């Protein structure tokens, strides 16, 4: 088990006005993300709880790339990881951001 936070200080404000969304499920090879609009609009925080230790730098890379590609300011992402591959993590993050942007 490992828990850590990755903070992005200068994120572009996330569009939409949805307060909260969930995406994915904590199952083998998958993750659950709870997204909440609770932060100042240029900040983004990702809280990770994962059973697989030792991949923090990889998480950092995934999350930075995600925040690069996607406006995430104001959003806090809380992740329960069931051992997902980085591509699944990235996909779920993108999906979470899209949901907060008001997409169905």
């Amino acid at each position: 088990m490992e828990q850590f936070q990755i903070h992005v200080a200068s994120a572009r404000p996330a569009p939409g006005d949805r307060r909260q969304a969930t995406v994915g499920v904590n199952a083998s090879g998958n993750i659950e993300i709870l997204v909440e609009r609770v932060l100042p609009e240029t900040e983004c925080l990702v809280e990770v709880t994962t059973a697989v230790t030792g991949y923090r730098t990889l998480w950092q890379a995934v999350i930075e790339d995600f925040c690069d590609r996607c406006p995430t300011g104001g959003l806090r992402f809380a992740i329960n990881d069931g051992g997902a591959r980085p591509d699944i993590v990235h996909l779920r993050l993108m999906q979470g951001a899209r949901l907060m942007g008001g997409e169905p």
Partner: protein
Amino acid sequence: MAQWNKQRSEREVRLAVAAKYADGKVVLAGNVVAFLSSVVCTGDRVCLEGDNQKQADFLADALASVDKAQIHDLHIVQSGVVLQSHIDLFEKGIARKLDFSYSGPQGHAIARALDSGKIELGAVHTYIELFARYFMDLTPNVALIAAVQADRAGNLYTGPNTEDTPTIVEATAFKSGIVVAQVNKIVDTLPRVDIPGGMVDFVIEADRPFYVEPLFTRDPASVTEIQILMAMMALKGIYAPYGVRRLNHGIGFPTAAIELILPTYGEQLGLRGKVATHFALNPHPTLIPAIESGWVEQIHSFGSEVGMDSYMQERSDIYFTGHDGTLRSNRLLCQAAGLYACDMFIGSTLQIDLAGNSSTFTSGRIAGFGGAPNMGSDARGRRHPSPAWLMAGREAVDNPTSLARGRKLVVQMIETFGEKMVPNFVEELDSVKMAEQLKLELAPVMIYGDDVSHIVTEEGIANLLLCRNAEEREQAIRGVAGFTPVGLGRNRAAVEALRARGVIRRPEDMGINPLSATRQLLAAHTIEDLVTWSGGLYHPPAKFRNW
């Protein structure tokens, strides 16, 4: 005085000895080992029909039971080495040398036998290449083949799984070899004649139907969202712009995903009738929804697929069928179609290096190639144009002249990570190291980088046709290699520049919403759904049924 008919005389001698086990052409199953010992001699080149799907397993077991003191040093020349008895031949010392195409489940066993010196490897071929060598320097002395039925004159009915049989028989029978067929049943009248009796020396009614592996059945229940995302990218980013109508799909789940989203996502994109109309393809059950939705005009098949026979019989406008109604497959001819008449090959691989070379040989496993290297290569002898071929050719050069030739689209679909977080993108293919260890002259490469036109991963599409030098190519590959070490090693600026030129395209660049990459997009979610789509004509094998 020179002897010009030694082979024919040798054949006559063997036939004379074997005759005591036969009643005309019919040999009783109980005599099979003694019989084989009379037609097979030490040092023979033997094709023990092991195709991609059907297996002459009864004859394989028998051959593995002969006395090694009497028969040894056989040279096995067959496309598929997939049965335990195939390996037993080498482990027991009955056979020594091997030339083949595909090994699938025996990949590890072959690697072990190579390592321990039990197998002397000739080469790993693509199908059409091995077949070609049957007529050049690997002609079998004895062919042990499989068919559904025979009559007493030796005429054979192969049923839907004709596969390699006509090619093997052609090479053996017309070069003074001996052809022995195991059949499920000897009958008076055949539904149709696939192999004329004049080319067949003996038939044996086996104690069981020959084994057929359901190799191309992909359960829709196992298709992942990542594979669906990749399938969406392939459809929108490759099929649509090139207008690919004639193609081959590989065996993996990503292409199964493509087949399953044709009637949904493909329909939304308005592509029906414009892409994916003609296939060189095994009878993939996952293509049923697209066929039923009117996407497909014609399919020619390498072999059959377990459970698809009735469906194909009732869809003779789509499939090639005999006058008896059942499918006629032919691996050699379908491979030829795949090489010359397809504008695109799209399939999965297990490993890709920085030059785009791809391999399914991962450490400790010699999987073989099957047909991928053939269909996944540009046919330099092709002379007929098509829009997709011409467009690909023009992308590959800076200032296309009126003489610029076209190009085949060769698309590799690969998820950036494999099982247990093993990166699928590597600096050097495992097969290079393996070749060193096993002292192979040629490191096995399934598809060479210079033949690959596109790589599709969950991160995006890299169009290698648009790359102008090795450096660009490398960055294009790194740019879709995700969070693997190869992907993380990208030059970000170079990748962004390639993206600006459309060499790399991300889902968002193609207007693909990651939220829509869900399993709801699949036209069938289960094998049962495929049965429903087929109107009950598809009969899946037991291991794929849960009812």
